[in-house]
């Protein structure tokens, strides 16, 4: 399953970044380590380095996205790559058109790296087998969103110094969340204790086999938590009758100051964005000193620069 990994990893030996499930802990460590250097670059007055000069990056987005796309765009620009954004409008994806034509398009563009977001699980994996370009999965259905997982891990690491033994609680629609899956895969590999919490209808079957604890009551889940990750309630994805109303959801699972008291004193509150204020999180918590939501966005650029850098065959440390 795992590719052969150099123990003192200096080089990221893969062509693609498709998910955290098949990464070795050493590979994750390499990425997180390298990201620290890129975090420094982001603090310089001139934030641009010539590393990817002459390379082309294509942002191929089959689902609307502002944050992830922009974050990759800034990351690529700071590495001096040329960027093309392709937003495939949902309406033009008809039966019989799609995957095969996507492959042809990518090959014709001779892109070095393709960042792809697609509404359906597995599309980046299928493409990765078929094209020479490096593929970065920027979210495939409810499957994985590896860069977001790495960003969250990097942010926790930055604040807590280590992931080992931390109690990390992911709250909300776990069933439909690729962010939750990538975090579960990544965090458990790095030795964190991961818990998931939400209404039973939004907890995926047999998830406990991924070494996570399942809670249906928020208060129990976040007791002594070191990190609470809230997921956006994705209204557009909900099937009917998974929960009755957003109002009831908020009453049961919305994070507010009162509930936060049972968590650890220095708990981190995270959210991959965009936030539904007043639904999964109250504004006072979102803006409190517990919240590292803006750090996540900032670190997003550094982590994505790292991934682009490593996939281009560069060495670990700058």
């Amino acid at each position: 399953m795992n590719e052969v990994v150099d123990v003192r990893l200096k080089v990221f030996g893969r062509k693609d970044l498709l998910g955290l499930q098949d990464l070795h802990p050493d590979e994750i460590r390499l990425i997180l380590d390298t990201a620290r250097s890129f975090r420094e670059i982001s603090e310089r007055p001139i934030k641009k380095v010539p590393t990817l000069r002459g390379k082309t990056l294509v942002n191929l987005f089959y689902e609307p996205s502002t944050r992830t796309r922009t974050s990759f765009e800034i990351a690529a620009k700071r590495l001096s790559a040329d960027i093309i954004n392709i937003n495939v409008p949902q309406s033009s994806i008809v039966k019989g058109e799609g995957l095969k034509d996507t492959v042809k398009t990518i090959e014709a563009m001779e892109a070095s790296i393709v960042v792809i977001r697609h509404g359906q699980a597995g599309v980046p994996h299928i493409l990765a087998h078929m094209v020479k370009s490096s593929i970065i999965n920027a979210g495939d259905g409810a499957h994985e969103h590896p860069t977001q997982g790495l960003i969250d891990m990097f942010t926790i690491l930055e604040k807590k110094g280590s992931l080992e033994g931390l109690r990390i609680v992911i709250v909300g629609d776990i069933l439909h969340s690729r962010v939750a899956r990538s975090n579960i895969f990544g965090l458990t590999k790095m030795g964190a204790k991961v818990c998931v919490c939400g209404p039973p209808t939004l907890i995926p079957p047999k998830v406990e086999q991924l070494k996570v604890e399942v809670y249906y009551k928020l208060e129990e889940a976040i007791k002594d938590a070191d990190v609470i990750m809230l997921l956006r309630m994705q209204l557009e994805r909900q099937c009917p009758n998974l929960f009755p109303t957003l109002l009831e959801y908020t009453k049961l699972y919305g994070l507010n100051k009162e509930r936060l008291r049972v968590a650890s004193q220095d708990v981190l509150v995270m959210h991959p964005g965009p936030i539904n204020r007043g639904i999964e999180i109250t504004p006072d918590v979102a803006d409190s000193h517990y919240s590292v939501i803006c750090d996540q966005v900032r670190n997003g650029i550094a982590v994505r620069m790292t991934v682009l850098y490593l996939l281009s065959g560069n060495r670990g440390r700058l």
Partner: protein
Amino acid sequence: MKLLIKGGRVIDPESRLDKVADLLIENGKIKDIIKPDTRNPIPETRIIDGKGKIVTPGLIDMHVHLREPGREDEETIKSGTRAAAKGGFTTICCMPNTSPCMDNHVVVEFVKSRVEKEGVINVIPIGGISKGLDGKELAEIGELVKAGVRAISDDGNPLMDAGMMRRALEYVKGFGIPLISHCEDINLSKDGVMNEGYMSTVLGMRGIPSASEEVMVAREIILAQLTQSQVHIAHVSTKGSVALIRDAKKKGIPITCETCPHYFVLTDEACKDFNTNTKVNPPLRTSEDVQAIKEGLKDGTIDVISTDHAPHADFEKELEYDKAPFGIVGLETALPLIFTELVGKSVLSLSDALSKVTINPALILGIKKGRIKKGFPADITIIDPDLEEVVDVNRFLSKSRNSPFDGWKVKGIPVMTIVKGRIVMEDGKVL
């Protein structure tokens, strides 16, 4: 033309015959089963060397989609029957979900005429239960039976209305043919694409719970008991279904069932590379289910192995997993998989394994086939139990390539198919 198959291991699962013998075929019928080399040369007889081979009643596949009329780009009666002949089948039943569908005798007559012209083996049409296979109004089942159907089914379109199913079961009883039920509660399966469980959670794909099959199996058992009409459950895939059917049979409820090779060979682990040739309905289940299916085959709970041969065009399967259609082809891999996975791994004896593709389907359909017996039609399959092959979808005679078994090494290959005394396949070549 007379044929003499000399020195083969002749197996007739019904009579438990299993011995080396010569088989004489004359005028399309089985003329005699004789001790080897006891008869003087018969003039004008082709001698077939059966040494080291297995001579069995011609294989019967109760569950095939031939796609004609409608999707002749995926399969035709010609290509489908040729693929079947290559796979060792002498009789197949074709499902009614064509376009237009076989819910009336006119389409049945059309299919029969095409079989007459271009088919190389026997084809028994299965008629629709309801008009348009939409579960609302009964099809003219009497007319369908008169035209030659030997079972009815709305396969692919689960009949959700229990009241309608009850009436269909009662009505069909008068014709002495079974109703084949595709058990799936569509409110439970919804837009699922693979088995619901650990793998669907890891892959982030929508799941189809075992319950969607089992709820309907339970309903059919209860309705079979109520109506005392014969129900045959198509493509059983779960542990729970096997248990329900086992209990029902103990109670004497008139129920039979089938499974398909992919349900005793593959698990949902096969979906992990997003290969759309693993997308099938019901979905590939867990290793626990595979184990239960094998036990069901062993103890006789599962009567029949069918293929649910479901050809799909490349351009349809080359889509995202979510969008690709359900279904895999099976005619050209079924027998080797039965040999390799069931007989080879001592799950079933040779005779028991063959009974699931010969006498059992024949009895369920009420047809005079599936036996090696004097006077019976000479539908015979000869199998080389030691011949090994690597499955190569590009060599399929089927028009479609959607098999998850491409590249698999298998053993036990049909080397001759004889239909009504005529050789239609020899050494993999269909004549």
